[in-house]
């Protein structure tokens, strides 16, 4: 009986190790951001942010969902968080004074997908040079979604009134 229990434990341990490596997160200590880029980090939660959603797949992309150009991809850890994605953004000077001829930020789309939950998509997420954006995704469990299985979409494509 004792031997069988030990075998199971080794199997479970191996599974845990594999899971751990899947959710490796780059160190967050230094917040210096590479030139001409902004940072993005995503928090996946559920039940109005009371519980984290680990092992969610986070995809940063451009273009249509059905024909996406994948820029980067990562996974959430036990606290529901990804590491920092570094994304190209326009020169910071564009946002520091009025009258810029083009948007002083870059726009990206984000998909957050996890087993047992409805996918969430955020469109036109603004990324500013030298600034970390924090995107929250409070996911709806599939069991609570009734027939609404399609992804939940938020479009952040408002123009700044500046």
């Amino acid at each position, binding site marked *: 009986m004792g031997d069988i229990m030990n075998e199971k434990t080794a199997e479970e341990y191996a599974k845990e190790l594999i899971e751990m490596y899947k959710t490796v997160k780059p160190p*967050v200590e230094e917040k210096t951001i590479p030139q001409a880029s902004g*940072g*993005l*980090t995503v928090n996946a939660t*559920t*039940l*109005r*942010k*009371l*519980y*984290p959603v680990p092992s969610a797949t986070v995809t940063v992309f451009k273009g249509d969902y059905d024909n996406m150009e994948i820029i980067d991809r990562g996974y959430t*850890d*036990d*606290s529901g*968080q990804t590491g920092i994605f570094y994304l190209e953004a326009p020169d*910071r000077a564009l*946002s*520091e*004074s*009025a*009258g810029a001829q083009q948007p*002083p*930020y870059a726009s990206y789309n984000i998909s957050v997908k996890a087993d*047992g939950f409805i996918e969430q998509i*955020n469109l036109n*997420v*603004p990324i*500013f*040079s*030298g*600034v*970390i*954006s*924090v*995107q*929250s995704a*409070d996911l*709806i*469990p*599939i*069991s*609570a*979604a*009734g*027939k*609404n299985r399609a992804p*939940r979409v*938020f479009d*952040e494509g*408002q123009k*700044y*009134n*500046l």
Partner: protein
Amino acid sequence: MPQAILPEIPQSITVHLGAPDRAARNVTVPFAEYVKNVASSEIYPTWPENALIANINVITSFALNRIFTEYYRSRGYDFDITSSTAIDQAFVEGRDIFENISSLVDERFNDYVVKGDGIEPYFTQFCNGTTSTCAGFSQWGSVDLANAGLTPLEILRNYYGEDINIVYDAPVAQEGESYPGFPLVLGDRGNAVKIVQTELNRISKNYPAIPQIVREDGIFGLDTQAAVRKFQEIFSLTPNGEVDKATWYKIKRYYTGVKSLSDLFSEGITLEETEVPFPQRLAQGDTGAEVRNLQYYLSVMAYFNPSLPELQINGVFDDATVSAVRAFQEYYGLAVTGVVNAGTWGTIKRIYIESVSALPEGYSGNLAKIYPGYFLTEGQSGQNVRDLQTYLSTIGRFYGELPVLPVTGYFGSQTREAVERFQTLFGIEVTGAVGPITWYSIAREYDFLVTTEGATPE
């Protein structure tokens, strides 16, 4: 008009997602979260810090003024403010928040602008200063002033007059204790430390990366510091291991949220026990136990589905209840009438049971799951029976008078006897079946043993 009591910062604010008379949804968000969203939508995060701070003070005061003057509510609307940039301030539901702006708001969400002798939050009118100019604050103008070396207060006075002041650290409306007024650090002792320890330990059940504090003894030791630091890392605060104002209120917010959900489930259990048959139709103006039951189910569903509005369980089918029923009907494909007939009632119960029983493994942490929504009786089998047997056997190992129950997933005579024994010991009507009251008592005992006595299910 508020009396001479210092205004409190509200826990949340209800935003209408459009012009006041346009048909649009309302969303209710925690107040600090609202300010972060507006600040991220109105201004650029790359601006100099003093300009960001001045703008945050403006945004906060503007919203507080709308709330305290009851500007919209007194005109019959069911919201506090709109997201219309023409008359209020930009709010984009579900948007990203800039980390630097988030930190600045955490430090000053309970600071606001006052003018002259007034204690009320000032109506801090503003415009962008380029395509629109006004008598009030200029957003781009604040950037120039900040670059010229002015402090946030000086910037505000430049636009609103010299008799402008800032109220710092206004009281925050919430359950529980206010920030003690000074940061709690390694070596401190006292009740405030004990409160933090208890709250962090509860939060760590949901966020297991936060290490448990072994003894909630009111002494700020190294393990308390480690827990604080991890909390700060997860919730985007400066991870310095000290409990400053921002950290104190964020811990409180999460703890209160977690506790509200537990309280909600407990309340629901009590309501379930008064299982009144559904009266065929519930509509605006109705009152009583059936309305409370309805409100309970809708409140729980609002947690599972954050696109549904939250509501108070007050036993009165009021406007908020009508909105909640309509939102439920719309989301789940029913006719949107705001009236609960048998079809709507049946769907509500069904979705509730599906949501609650399919809550993913580990989503109650170590704590017992909530009542599955139907009586467990001899002859049944399944996961809910397994859970019941797990809780009873854990309790059995602690109390000699209770049999230790094998966890088989089948509710046989052994399980029935264990239930009867539990009911006898805990002063519940002995039926051998597990309804909401029995489930709640078992769950509460199990939670207590796990969190306080260190029991484990296996």
